[in-house]
């Protein structure tokens, strides 16, 4: 295909004026930040805050997908490969008892992040340039295959990956004497990471490379014609996104206490797309809201409506897509500009 057609067009409805959009985004950001601060006051040091902390990390993961898909138009169907893949690297490095291993948590996380980035680089090198130069659905198929293969590989990895059962972590989330493994401290860690990732990515998408990335989504050929090295930019964005996804994923699964093949698999890769679509593609904040809302909905409904909860969640999703085709916060999407 010659031009990139976004699968679900963000801002398909007439986008509001830019100034207004900027203002409404500020409002949403402030409300979001406010909720992040209020939540621990209301929930205290409870299981609920622990759960919310987990959703915040998933929200950060959703943002990494949004940068690639929502902003860059690269339809990634395998992002769990980075999210869970890095966690696997951390699990292996911190639990295996041979040679220099086990490593402490943070060096292992660093290696996990590098591994996720390297995987993204390799995918980028293979798909974005050269003879293949895959776009759109073709790229989606490649990422899907990576995620699928990785899940199979983890399943078949014997004692290295723990096979179907996966690996139980020996390490906890701690920085020196500071234990961040559960509840309120964990929530704080997750909230800090989410906010930092949000503002970091916000900066990125409005900066030069980010705008080129956006341009590629709109018209890849024209951007190339302008002299930008499209494959390099796409690869760079994918690597950045994968590294961040790997970092967040490592912490997420250490907190879980276990990583198993589903973590890198197709289901996980698909689920994150739902959060992004629900919240609004190409908005960063939308995927955050989508991830938190959908997970809260699932967690509460699956207990209250045994057996039928999946139907209810499905109906809610369909309703949202029908009435808000560009997601709950789709009105915030559109061409970005320098602030």
């Amino acid at each position: 295909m010659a031009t990139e057609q976004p699968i679900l067009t963000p801002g398909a409805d007439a986008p509001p004026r830019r100034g207004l959009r900027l203002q409404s985004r500020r409002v949403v950001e402030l409300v979001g930040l406010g909720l992040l601060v209020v939540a621990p006051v209301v929930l205290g040091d409870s299981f609920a805050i622990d759960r919310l902390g987990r959703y915040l990390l998933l929200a950060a993961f959703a943002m990494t997908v949004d940068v690639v898909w929502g902003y860059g138009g690269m339809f990634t169907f395998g992002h769990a490969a980075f999210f869970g893949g890095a966690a696997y690297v951390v699990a292996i490095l911190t639990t295996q008892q041979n040679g220099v291993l086990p490593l402490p948590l943070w060096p292992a996380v660093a290696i996990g992040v590098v591994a996720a980035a390297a995987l993204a680089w390799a995918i980028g090198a293979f798909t974005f340039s050269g003879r293949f130069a895959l776009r759109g659905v073709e790229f989606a198929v490649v990422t899907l295959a990576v995620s699928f293969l990785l899940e199979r590989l983890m399943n078949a990895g014997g004692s290295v990956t723990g096979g179907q059962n996966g690996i139980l972590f020996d390490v906890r989330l701690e920085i020196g004497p500071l234990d961040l493994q559960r509840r309120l401290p964990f929530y704080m860690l997750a909230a800090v990471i989410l906010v930092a990732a949000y503002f970091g990515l916000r900066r990125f998408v409005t900066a030069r490379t980010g705008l080129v990335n956006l341009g590629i989504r709109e018209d890849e050929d024209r951007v190339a014609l302008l002299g930008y090295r499209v494959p390099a930019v796409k690869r760079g964005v994918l690597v950045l996104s994968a590294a961040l996804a790997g970092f967040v994923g490592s912490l997420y699964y250490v907190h879980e206490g276990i990583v198993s093949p589903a973590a890198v698999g197709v289901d996980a890769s698909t689920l994150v797309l739902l959060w992004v679509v629900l919240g609004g593609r190409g908005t960063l904040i939308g995927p955050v809201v989508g991830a938190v809302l959908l997970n809260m909905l699932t967690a509460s409904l699956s207990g209250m409506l045994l057996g039928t909860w999946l139907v209810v969640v499905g109906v809610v999703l369909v309703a949202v897509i029908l009435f808000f085709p560009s997601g709950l916060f789709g009105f915030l999407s559109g061409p970005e500009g320098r602030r």
Partner: protein
Amino acid sequence: MRLRRMVTMAVALAVALAACGGGAAEETDPISIGIIADLTGPFTTYGTSLDRSARLAINEVNEDGGIDGRQVEVITEDIQTDVAATVDKARQLVESDEVDLVMGPIGSDANDAAAQAVVEDNGALLFYTETYEGGKCLPTYFSFGAVPAQQIRPFIPVLQEEFGPRVLLFGADYVWPRRSFEIAKPIIEENGGEVVGEIYLPLVAEDFTELVSAVRDTQPDYMFSLYPAAFAPALQALDDAGLLEGLGQGNIFVGDPDLPGVIDLAQGMYTTLPYFTAIDTPEATEFLEAFQAEFGEDAIPSGGEGVGAYVAVHLYRQAVEQAGTTEAEAVAEAMVGQTFDGPTGTVEVMPSHHLKQTIHMVRAEGDGYVLVDSFADQDPEEDCEL
């Protein structure tokens, strides 16, 4: 001065009252059991059976006056055949709902995850009721399903007698089949049998050429299978190659609900599990009637997990009544040595926190299983020191 003293006394009184209130409440408050069951996803059959059997037993206990006079409440959470959901729901039940006991889940992976969340992180009680590979050894963890040694030890001599000494081991590539076959091999040798081949395929394989050529090359007398997720296509592949005819079959996983899917390819196949609907003891008949009265004529309790949950609830009641408390460690201590006569026969909780129990052997004939033999008091052979 006087005011301060009065305040002090008031506070002391309040504290004392609160303490009394707390104590009194503990004796009459309902006991709560949380069930983590796969009610959606690939394990729906087993998860549903687990939930139903547990609820059936809990209803019986409540109608019989509860546990030490306290009624039992139950909270079921759907863990969706998903490890992440298992961790989430297990923690929720223990940390937020503060249940006294968690029962479930189904998968081995979820079992690992739940044991970590419930037992290791929170020191709470976890009752796992599924047939599994064995080997879990934790202070407040109990297993009520069958483990490999007890299913395999009495089984091998029968299979050899029936089919011959040469066996091909066929399993899915994960911990349950692998550990089971490690346990099976010495037992086969002790009985003078010979393992002619050992083959592991992915959990859900699409291509069974490897299996077909293994059977063709080794010409085993019988195939001993632990291939739970895609057994029918595996047998179909053998049948297409004309190799199923005359090949003996033994397995330790095909319970009643799974049989219809393979019955056409499994005539004469032997299976060992703690429970089948073919068991005709009064306890088993009564159990099945109660189960179907509660959940419908078509409801079939599955091989191990379902009935394990039923037995587990009754054992829990006895242990709590003996311990006089629901405190996890005390209950765990009281659990060991408890016995119960249920639908599976007589069971006893061993010091390894696994059950010594009766294993039943059936053969597939026509459109169902026929009970062939029952082996009482099978030792789990789990060397777990707690």
